[in-house]
């Protein structure tokens, strides 16, 4: 089957099998910035925005994204770069494998929640696993990034 997606603003058509998940379809189409962590929807590594809403792309049948807009980390270059500086400053960049998914979820949270508390941030980010940072540096980076947005 062939599905139509709009990835980072650009319409594409991709061939896939009915059972393929969105992560694999995107990666096969060259969007390797979408990483695969667990394949069971538990780690958040493969997060992309589907019409602006964060989803674990490994648990979404690609066909269900047909006709929808997908945003990967490369589609939010400027914001990602800005947030990256906060992560690096807090020692929370480390291996980097979880960063694209984590960053997309932070950006989605920024849109969805006005001035979230630390508990709200933790609740929002609980689906994004990171094995390097112990989350503390990530949390500092998110808090400081959100503060900087208000200034």
């Amino acid at each position, binding site marked *: 089957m062939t599905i139509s997606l709009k990835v980072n603003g650009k319409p594409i058509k991709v061939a896939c099998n009915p059972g393929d998940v969105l992560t694999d379809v995107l*990666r096969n189409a060259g969007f*390797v*910035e*979408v*990483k*695969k*962590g*667990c*394949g*069971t*929807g*538990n*780690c958040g*590594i493969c997060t992309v925005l589907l019409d602006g809403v964060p989803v674990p792309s490994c648990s979404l049948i690609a066909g269900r994204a047909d006709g929808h807009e997908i945003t*990967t*980390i*490369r589609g939010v*270059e400027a914001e*990602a*770069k800005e*947030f*990256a*500086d906060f*992560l*690096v*400053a*807090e*020692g*929370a*960049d*480390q*291996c*980097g*494998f*979880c*960063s*694209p998914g984590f*960053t997309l979820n932070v950006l989605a949270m920024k849109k969805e929640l006005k001035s979230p508390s630390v508990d709200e941030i*933790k*609740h929002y*980010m*609980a*689906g*994004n*696993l*990171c*094995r*390097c*940072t*112990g*989350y*503390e*540096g*990530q*949390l500092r980076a998110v808090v400081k990034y959100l503060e900087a947005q208000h200034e």
Partner: protein
Amino acid sequence: MKNIAESALNVRGQTQYIDDLPEPAGCLQAAVRLSDSAHGRIIAIKTDKALALDPSVQVITGKDVPGVNQIGFNKPDEPLLPEHEWEYWGQPVALVLAKNRETARAAAKLVEIEGEELPVVTDPREAARNSDFILPSRTIQCGDTEEAFKHCAYVIEGRVESGGQEHVYLETQGAMAEVREGGKVFVISSTQGPSGVQRAIAQSLGLPMNMVEVEARRLGGAFGGKEDQAATWASLAALGAWISKKPVKLYLNRHEDMRATGKRHPYSSDFKIGAAQDGTILAFEADYYQNSGSTCDLSPAILARTVLHATGAYKIPNVRVTGYMCKTNLPSFTAFRGFGAPQAFFVIESAIDALSQASGIPVVEIQKKNLYREGDSTYFGMEMERVRAHEAFDRLLEKTQWHSLQAEISDFNHKSRTVKKGAAIIPVCFGISFTKLPMNQAGALVHVYVDGSVLVSTGAIEMGQQVSRKIATVVSETLGVPLENIRVERTTTLTVANTVPTAASTGSDLNGMAARIACLEIKKRLAGKAGELLGASPEVVRFENGMIFKNDEKTELSWKDLIVKANEARIDLSAHGFYATPDLFYDMKAERGKPFAYHVYGAAAVVATVDTMRGTYDLESVSIVHDIGHSLDISVDRGQIEGALAQGLGWSLLEDLRFGTDGKPMSDTLSTYKVPDISFMPRTMDIEFLPEIENPATPFNSKAVGEPPLQYGIAGYFAILNALRAANPAGKTFYSIPLTPEKAAGFLDGAEV
């Protein structure tokens, strides 16, 4: 100033990990057929159905290995693909190649293993009863424990269990291989040790090592899991490429990775501790039954670290500790951050807890009384220098206002029925150096190009610990050149040979020193030329921030100009540096020596609350005082401490690695194996660094930071245990980690867990 360019790329998803690299034309995808029982004899491997699936399918088995079908170097017990017997559930038995990954995986499922099931052992004590050991046991002895126990006011014995731990490096294992012109094999591997991978590939393909090139790019996490065990996947990819004559990529999915690869060793241990009336520990004995899994792998080195950390941060005059490497039908357990030390720390801290329970002396009093002091000798005869155990411990007591905190907790527990609080401290004293002595060496290659930019290659693998950034800092400070002119390249066996894995927390110590030595050599040559140009003796020439100074006065001569002039004068602008940690020695027969270059000290306090109805718990706070030396990058080191703590807490509390008695992996996905998430972490985390201190074994008095803080997680176990005791004083103490909510609920119910 920071060299953040590469880091920023990671965050933006632009780093290429193994599976992101563009594939060479005609690249085949590989999959592995994993065994589906824990032990058996191979009668036949049937490939007909797999081959019938698609014309692109090829199946490769052990008999196809052209060289020696063996990648075990500590002991030859690890065939690349087994020809006679499989020894754990999830062992790769056949390699399958196909045009794409889906086809390769589907074909792998169709490969039939016809075999005869053999008995399965998963319990290390059962293996010990059968005398089924990987290698002979190891005992370190000091003084006379038997005699000492006779004079103790308290003698307590007990048993301690600690579970295994899955690495969950987020990038799974993988490699891409191709055979290039002249039969040269080129492999990109997600490995901490490219030279080890190179050796395994050369041996299994029957090639000299100079025909095999291995490159390692940035890894998406490793934590020890890619120290020895990356070799399997890289060798399989290379084997596939060699036989098919096409490029081959092998990249495991999470399920395959969690089944097939080794994890932290589970241990089952017995202890006996004896103390005087005042809590002075006089004697300690322990037997560690290490569950080594199916092959040797790194088990002896890991056991070495266990028996060398048996007394934790404490001076104990009479010691006898023995470690056993027990062979079981489980994946070969392997390196994991801490490398056998966390298991030892948990045993000694459990013994002290048991001593406190029996004597009524508070744990913290026993801990403080017995900490190492300057000039003490360890039970293996190493004289302790620059000891900071008391400094860290006392500062932590002060910082947490420990005594009033205890009073507050007791008051809280008096008033609160359904929520109870507990706190605990752990002091850490962690030896830095590879326990396998010959591994304490490193090389570096430094080039200065004619435009003044600097390129550094070392054996240090970048896997998130920002070792590249630290080495760049060392090079920048040594050459007096701004950081933006320095680039640290990925590791390949072409530029630096015979490297040791980036492991044992030594990555920036060893490779930083080697890079510094290379830079000093280049600088010596350049100082001669600068002296000549400035009419001064080389001794008064100094390099700083890209400019040349004479007698501490800035001159007109810049680094860039000097490089051009030096090149014109035909001065060598490249150097190879080599570093071997000095003064290390160890007599394996006597079990005496100085196996560590230095120690890292610290202490952590954890406060936790327990829901007494459910057994669930919350980590309220953690306070850490840590000995970091002169940090090469404070935010990186802080990140290392936080990350290590999370893994330590995960191991102590949450991560429940399970196998059935038939050896079946029961926690082989991230839906069945729970690692800490952001909400699991302590509500507050306070990290304080001890003042800088001299440390001649490293660049600029820095200290290794990767592993020591992992031990802090153990305080989480004891904090929760203490809260559980407040809820049920009659509860039966068990020393068994992880202390999952399930076990906590069992304690509250009075169950023997």
